[in-house]
């Protein structure tokens, strides 16, 4: 890609005291692109997102660079970067009506003249699919369902037509059906407005369905980065491979095995599942070399000594000693 990216992260490290939350992370995000930041607990995905939005707590020690190469002033969180949190109940103010909360953002950033605020609020509620918006404008957050609250949080996040929308596990507190609806909404919004999306999630299938590229993080490090199709068809990092192998399917004919016979024993019908042995490094645990080495099926001697160099660029690549080496 030749055009300048919207956002460039270069050797980003974030520590809290002795705890290294993110270590030398580099990637680029392009205008209008949807990037999934995939990881489990302690992977550093949320810290990375907060660093991008400038929402890190004061005690965080940050080094590396987060650049916005495009023309114009550096972005302002809340205006140029919208943020949707995991729990809509705690991100919305319980004592203000949803109309007041959306209106407040519009006024703070001077997006529309005060006289046009009510009209724009209604328009935003319509856009995120709140039915009968004119009647619900005066309602308080507790009067909405969980899914509707997340829609309202999204309306607030996009009210200033940001260049980047960061959604941190936006559907983890919702059930599957509502999750699908909220993801469909995010999909429509990003397609229509051309804003970039950074989706933070632990769910590979969810990310794969919603974004263009996926960044796989493990224990504060970027393990693999690449377009969804490439990542799913030819995963290069053993962690990505293991995640794919442990995906459970809801549809018939999981994997390549034939469907079980009717008279199959229970063991045959419900076989043990492919599992990744071991556990994630504990928070604050200092791991020498590659943090996945202890659980990796393809571990080599180098893995325990140094973290592998990044093979690739800011758009795709992998950090693994096994990649490119003679097996």
């Amino acid at each position: 890609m030749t055009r300048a990216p919207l956002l460039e992260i270069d050797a980003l490290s974030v520590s809290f005291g002795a705890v290294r939350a993110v270590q030398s992370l580099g990637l680029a995000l392009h205008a209008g692109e949807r990037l999934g930041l995939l990881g489990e607990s302690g992977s550093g995905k949320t810290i990375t997102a907060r660093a991008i939005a400038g929402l890190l707590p004061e005690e965080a020690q940050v080094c590396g660079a987060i650049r916005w190469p495009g023309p114009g002033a550096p972005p302002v969180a809340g205006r140029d970067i919208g943020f949707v949190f995991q729990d809509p109940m705690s991100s919305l103010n319980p004592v203000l009506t949803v109309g007041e909360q959306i209106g407040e953002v519009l006024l703070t950033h001077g997006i529309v003249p005060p006289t046009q605020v009510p009209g724009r609020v209604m328009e935003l509620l319509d856009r995120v699919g709140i039915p009968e918006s004119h009647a619900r404008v005066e309602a308080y957050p507790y009067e909405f369902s969980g899914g509707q609250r997340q829609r309202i949080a999204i309306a607030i996040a996009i009210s200033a037509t940001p260049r980047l929308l960061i959604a941190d596990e936006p559907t983890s507190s919702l059930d599957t059906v509502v999750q699908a609806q909220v993801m469909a909404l995010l999909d429509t919004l990003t397609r229509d407005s051309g804003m970039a999306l950074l989706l933070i999630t632990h769910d590979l299938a969810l990310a794969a369905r919603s974004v263009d590229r996926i960044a796989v993080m493990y224990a504060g490090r970027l393990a693999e980065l690449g377009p969804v199709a490439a990542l799913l068809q030819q995963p290069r990092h053993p962690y990505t491979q293991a995640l794919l192998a442990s995906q459970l399917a809801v549809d018939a004919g999981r994997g390549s095995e034939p469907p079980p016979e009717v008279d199959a024993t229970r063991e045959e019908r419900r076989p043990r599942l492919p599992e990744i042995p071991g556990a994630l490094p504990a928070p604050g645990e200092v791991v020498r070399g590659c943090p996945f080495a202890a659980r990796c099926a393809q571990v080599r001697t180098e893995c325990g000594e140094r973290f592998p160099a990044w093979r690739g660029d800011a758009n795709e690549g992998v950090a693994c000693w096994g990649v490119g080496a003679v097996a």
Partner: protein
Amino acid sequence: MSHALLQVRGLTKRYGGSRGRIVLDGVDLELHANETLALVGGSGAGKTTLARIVVRLIEPDVGRVHFDGVDLLAARGGKLRALRRGLQIVFQDPLAALNPRATVGRLLADPLRVHELVADHERPGAVHALLARVGLDAQFAQRYPHELSGGQRQRVNIARALATRPRLLILDEPVSALDVSVRAQILNLLLDVQREEGLAYLFISHDLAVVRAIADRVAVMADGRIVEQGAVESVLDAPQTGATRALVAAVPRLPIRRDTDRHTQRDGDWTNE
């Protein structure tokens, strides 16, 4: 057909008085020994309320629950305690379900002590055996819950529930709070335990892929009712009701199947159904 291990009839529960919101509306359910029944549905469908009634944490307004032919809701005192031995529960949040001030050893000794299952001097050995049962070594007995990983905590919860050698284990979203890479370990542990001890599971989940991997039968709940039930394969592959179809359609699937799969690729768009 042999009689059911768990039989639920007409279970009804409202929150907030007789005019309150109805969470269970005449639920009928049967679960046989050595069988896994999954209870699925959206949030607010009544799954957790049903589970809590079955383990007598809350009382229903109307309905009957029989465990092994005994009227569970009428049991009191020592009789109820004896019934509880056969019927244990594992909660969703493995940390919240463990007393933060108790060591793992004490947590696992509790059921043995309450039900007087082993002599005092044999208790440490029994605790170590329970730990081994769930794949943890003896040194974990000295640890506190906050010192464990999510997967280890859920193993402790499972070990505690297994301590009384129950015939029915109620699993309320046992893996949904766990990291993806440890989820399969816990599901395999549950599969192994069932294979070796032949106990029945009532498995509450919103994740249909997990349900397909672990359950024999599935009951779909919506608005406090069971709208559809049957063998897992038939319900998930050919859902008969709108509620089930919506649940199945909403599951995120990998848009491109792996090389090893011979199945057709799926379109990558979200449906808004």
